[in-house]
């Protein structure tokens, strides 16, 4: 199975002006392990909300590509948001789920996906324009095509190994990472 750190590093290499929102826990550590970046926005609360944040951002910035990088537990907690995204059909939004079938942050308890619940088929049913399931590093190239070019909404289910990784902890100051993100992304002041 896929090494999550290496997979995410391949996705974010030469990322240009891609906007990235990460789900709290291990997905944030994976993205931070690629190097902190002002166009990263890390969530540290409200599990289940990452896809909704990506949707709000994608609708507010139709001129930019937005990638949500999160885990299966986070997506399961806000599964209805896949349907909400399917209704709005944001062409610039991609969701990457690093599915290890476990809740890594709380002690590796099994998640629903370990019992065969297929989030990629859920995304298909929610009218995502492109849905890919990836279980080898070779799939990073296809994933990059979706993230950086394809009209979405796009959904990539990456089946990653559940091996533990060192925690790489970026800033937990929500005000600071918001200001940094706004400045780096050139958003109009509110």
């Amino acid at each position, binding site marked *: 199975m896929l090494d999550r750190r290496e997979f995410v590093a391949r996705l974010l290499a030469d990322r240009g002006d891609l906007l990235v929102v990460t789900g709290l826990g291990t997905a944030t550590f994976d993205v931070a392990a690629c190097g902190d970046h002002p166009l990263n926005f890390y969530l540290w609360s409200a599990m289940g909300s990452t896809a909704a944040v990506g949707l709000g951002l994608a609708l507010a910035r139709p001129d930019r590509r937005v990638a949500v990088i999160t885990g299966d537990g986070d997506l399961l907690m806000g599964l209805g948001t896949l349907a*909400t995204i399917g209704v709005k059909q944001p062409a610039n939004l991609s969701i990457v789920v690093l599915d290890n079938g476990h809740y890594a942050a709380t002690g590796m308890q099994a998640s629903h996906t370990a019992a065969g619940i297929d989030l990629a088929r859920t995304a298909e049913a929610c009218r995502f324009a492109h849905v890919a399931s990836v279980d080898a590093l070779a799939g990073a190239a296809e994933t990059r095509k979706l993230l950086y070019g394809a009209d979405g909404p796009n959904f990539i289910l990456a089946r990653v190994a559940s091996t533990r990784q060192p925690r790489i902890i970026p800033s937990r100051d929500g005000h600071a990472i*918001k200001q940094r993100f*706004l400045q780096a992304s050139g958003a109009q002041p509110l």
Partner: protein
Amino acid sequence: MAEPPAPSAPAAAWPDRIHAVFRRNDVAQVGYVPDTGHARLISLCQQDNEIVDVVLASEAEGPGLVLGAALGGRRAALLMQSSGVGNCVNTFSLLRNCGIACVILVTMRGEFDDFNPWQVPMGSITEQTLKLAGFLTYRVEHEEDVEEIVAAGCNMAFGGNLQVAILLAQRMVDRHTGHH
């Protein structure tokens, strides 16, 4: 002889006034779950090319949507019933953690002649719940107050990156929607 004053047109009803306040405040995204009380305001937002309307599967998605909009430099508001406030308790944390301006219009249930008594437990703790979650709260009891209060709420929220909830009394909402 002077013409008698024209009866107030339906177009001047409170949902229209709230929509006008949204426009004056450059509200660009409105998230909602379908609701009888908010039906006209939702329809006005859907028809407005300057507002992106987002129908949510659960109100719990709303604070995330508002945060995302803010990260894109856009102002957002949420429309929900009092029951929806309960669905958001944990996701509200995003707004305080990041200092995100948010205006929520809440149609109250379970407080005045509600046919469904199961609305009472959540309706009776809605305002306290919002306060505990860090919101400034205002109540609109009378239609003639709606524009002033919603405008003040928008000024407070967008002027200081605060979270503001405006509770629309069930007595007023139900009169408007014909439940009385």
